[in-house]
């Protein structure tokens, strides 16, 4: 069971605020919810939408059809009319909006309510919440509690006023039932279909950015340096707000170059650190990334992707920095790129990212995107607690004291990893984080043998990460192969990475329900790829790449890294590159049309 609900209106009129409240309400009611918001790169004047889906099982993608649409303006209706089905419900402003089409239309006296209570446009949205609850047959008291929580800081008057407006919406529906039989029948159906689960699992509602912030704190990061950039900015705001509780140093600095170079200062001094940005800001960090590679400094770089090139579509989504991230930075050095598939993944992989950065003493990049970074998802609190209680920092060979003498910071070793002494504690030993090529003792060198030794040592870390060389530390942590979902006999496999996971799985289920078997292969550890990954690809199967970009970038990575010729043809690509997340229905439709062509 899943149900989609959508609200839209002018930017700056609280659409996302009330939308989040509703996402939380669905979650508190016992469902899993996921939302997705669209807004322009403008503070005002554009159009903002909040679309949410709730379901009895975990979900992190929306769907093509809208089950309940709130239309306060004509354009709210017009832009989504094609997504309505005969089963859909439209709550609309009877004074503002003209409808056409077959669905259950419920006129709402928004204007009258607004006038009656002298309410600001922002508050009118609360009416829709009340009305929606009435339609779903949910407990009105939940709304009251939500309002009390959300407006606690604003005082009793505001709380009461909001409750009143919600109640107006609720009452209006109750009233309608009496003379609208169709509505009555529908509501009776929904009451049953949307009945909140009996046993309530505790949940948290988080965005991908929240999850990254949360897990960074959990990993013991001491600092976060950043320059704001959509859609990564909320990480900065969240971590900044938490400073009194986490003790983290959170810096909004002058530019992204400073962000990474300050981060490297923290890293050298032994503090776990991350920096975050989007593609354009990351472009300014790539020189610093190369320095981290050379000096073998651990740093986590969080990239929330948006469509480029250049300023592009700042508030929209894309998965178009995979190749850029993999090859970012001049010269050759190891680098690990991870791409979480959903919010829980984000928590786990963020924790792992900090460990990997420390173990391999090299930059680790986390690729998120607007769809994951800014969408709210309900996740099981139990899962989070389990992750947290299981988590123990693994700093690899980073130490506060050394038994070596002389201490060789860049000592050659079979796994490529040398002991890193946190400077400033040992009274005798010191070393340089040298951006030049260096000897084992960290002094600058231009010697051929030194250069070869250090270059090979650095690249050997890659092999260790991939499991080709045994790790000589306490605990192994490295590459994880892609996850296969679905029928193992399926002759067609959708290959995806990062945030497109949920939509692709949905597509698989839709096709399955139509009797068509497809599998899904989802990558989170997108670079480097272990050579053994090659054996996962069966030459007799068809692999179709599902990506939110125009070049099927993962397919390129697989060809480059594994030498197998997949995903190079248009027919083996299902792509979306207009800034919108790819949805299950997009995948199914494109898949059908391509299958016909081939």
């Amino acid at each position: 069971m899943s149900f989609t609900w959508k609200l839209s209106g002018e930017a700056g009129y609280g659409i996302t605020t009330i939308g989040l409240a509703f996402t939380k309400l669905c979650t508190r009611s016992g469902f899993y919810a996921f939302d997705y918001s669209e807004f322009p790169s403008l503070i005002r004047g554009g159009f903002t939408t909040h679309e949410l889906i709730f379901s009895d099982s975990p979900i992190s993608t929306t769907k093509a059809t809208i089950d309940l649409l709130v239309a306060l303006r004509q354009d709210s209706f017009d832009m989504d009319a094609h997504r309505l089905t005969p089963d859909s419900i439209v709550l609309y402003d009877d004074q503002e909006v003209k409808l056409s089409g077959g669905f259950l239309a419920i006129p709402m006296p928004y204007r009258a309510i607004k006038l009656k209570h002298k309410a600001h446009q922002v508050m009118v949205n609360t009416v829709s919440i009340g009305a929606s609850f009435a339609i779903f047959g949910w407990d009105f008291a939940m709304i009251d509690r939500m309002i009390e929580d959300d407006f606690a800081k604003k005082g009793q008057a505001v709380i009461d006023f909001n409750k009143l407006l919600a109640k107006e919406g609720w009452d209006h529906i109750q009233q309608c039932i009496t003379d609208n039989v169709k509505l009555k029948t529908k509501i009776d159906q929904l009451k049953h279909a949307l009945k909140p689960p009996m046993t309530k699992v505790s949940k948290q509602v988080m965005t991908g950015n929240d999850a990254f912030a949360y897990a960074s704190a959990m990993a013991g990061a001491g600092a976060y340096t950043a320059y704001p950039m959509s859609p990564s900015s909320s990480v900065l705001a969240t971590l900044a707000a938490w400073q009194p509780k986490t003790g983290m140093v959170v810096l909004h600095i002058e530019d992204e170059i400073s962000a990474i170079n300050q981060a490297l200062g923290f890293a050298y001094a032994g503090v776990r650190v991350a920096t975050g940005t989007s593609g354009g800001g990351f472009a300014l960090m790539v020189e610093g990334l190369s320095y981290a590679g050379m000096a073998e400094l651990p740093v986590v770089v969080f990239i929330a992707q948006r469509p480029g090139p250049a300023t592009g579509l700042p508030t929209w989504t894309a998965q178009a920095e995979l190749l850029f991230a993999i090859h970012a930075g001049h010269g050759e050095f190891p680098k690990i790129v991870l791409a979480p598939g959903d919010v829980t993944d984000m928590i786990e992989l963020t924790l792992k990212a900090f460990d990997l950065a420390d173990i391999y003493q090299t930059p680790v990049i986390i690729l998120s995107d607007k769809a994951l970074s800014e969408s709210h998802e309900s996740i099981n609190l139990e899962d989070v607690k389990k992750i947290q209680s299981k988590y123990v920092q693994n700093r690899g060979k980073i130490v506060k004291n050394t038994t070596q003498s002389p201490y060789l910071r860049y000592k050659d070793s079979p796994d490529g990893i040398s002991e890193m002494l946190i400077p400033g504690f040992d009274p005798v030993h010191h070393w340089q984080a040298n951006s030049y090529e260096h000897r084992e003792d960290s002094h600058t060198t231009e010697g051929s043998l030194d250069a070869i030794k250090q270059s090979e040592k650095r690249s050997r870390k890659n092999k260790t990460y991939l499991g080709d060389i045994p790790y000589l530390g306490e605990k192994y942590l490295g590459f994880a192969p892609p996850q296969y979902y679905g029928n193992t006999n399926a002759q067609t496999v959708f290959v995806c990475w990062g945030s497109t996971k949920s939509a692709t799985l949905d597509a698989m289920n839709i096709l399955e329900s139509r009797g068509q078997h497809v599998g899904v292969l989802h990558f989170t550890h997108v670079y480097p790829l272990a050579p053994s990954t090659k054996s996962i690809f069966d030459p007799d199967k068809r692999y179709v790449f599902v990506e939110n970009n125009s070049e099927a970038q993962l397919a390129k990575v697989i060809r480059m890294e594994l030498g197998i010729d997949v995903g190079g043809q248009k027919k083996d690509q299902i792509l979306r590159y207009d800034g919108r997340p790819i949805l299950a229905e997009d995948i199914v439709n494109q898949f059908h049309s391509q299958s016909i062509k081939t």
Partner: protein
Amino acid sequence: MSQANIIKDLSGYTPTWCPGCGNWGIIRALKLALSEQGLGPTDIFVAFDIGCSGNMNDFLHANSMHTLHGRSIPSAIGMKLAHHTKQVLAVGGDGALYGEGGNHLLHACRGNHDITVVAHDNMVYGLTTGQTAPTSTRGMKTKSTPGGSVEMSINPLALAISQGATFVAQTFANNSRHVADMIKAAMQHKGFSLVNILQPCVTFNWVNTYQYFFEHTYYLGSEYDKSSMPLALLKSLEHISERFPLGVLYEKSDSVPYHLSLPMLRTEKSLVSRADRPDLSFASREFV
């Protein structure tokens, strides 16, 4: 040498600077300043920039980063905030600090970060063999400006004083004692300090020679009041007429360094010394 002396010995490789280069005087002064404060290699953190100046990374022992060109200041700030009980320096050339890295200097000043920036101001790009620098005098002929440079020199002192630096001094590489004194005073100051060192580059700068600096510099007398910002600013304008006052131009007495404005660093326990993992239970409340 005794064990303690070895531990405190700051000398690394023998420098490879050109004979007669002003950098020789600067490294002598820097060692003097550090050892007079009882500081050895492991007591300090230094971010060396890229340039002839920054090549000191191999000549001076320290916990150090040999950073990217122009990025010594951000790296120094990172080190300071990570380990704020230690003294942190950034050492670099005019190209690095005022050119490539100008934005970082500007913002480090207004942040009043408690680091000491040691600028080797030779008015030329040394390591890349003689191009114009941000402090080159207008009209200077260099490899990249064979017709004479078109830009006027940056005024680093005025920049720092007007943008929030709380300690600004100038000195001349020829007088190691004075350089050392300036660096010591800068390090002892709580907050952002800039020491601009006039440094002859004997190989690529035939204009701003030792002789030139002898003629164009003078020491600030005891009557000079370094506590007045407007005065210091006016003093720094002499730069335009190629007059270079030597000494502390400005020091703000009640300076509060950046890290002391952060509640979590108002303690002797530096960030890197903390083992405790934060209690995140507040978050589960926030996210429901």
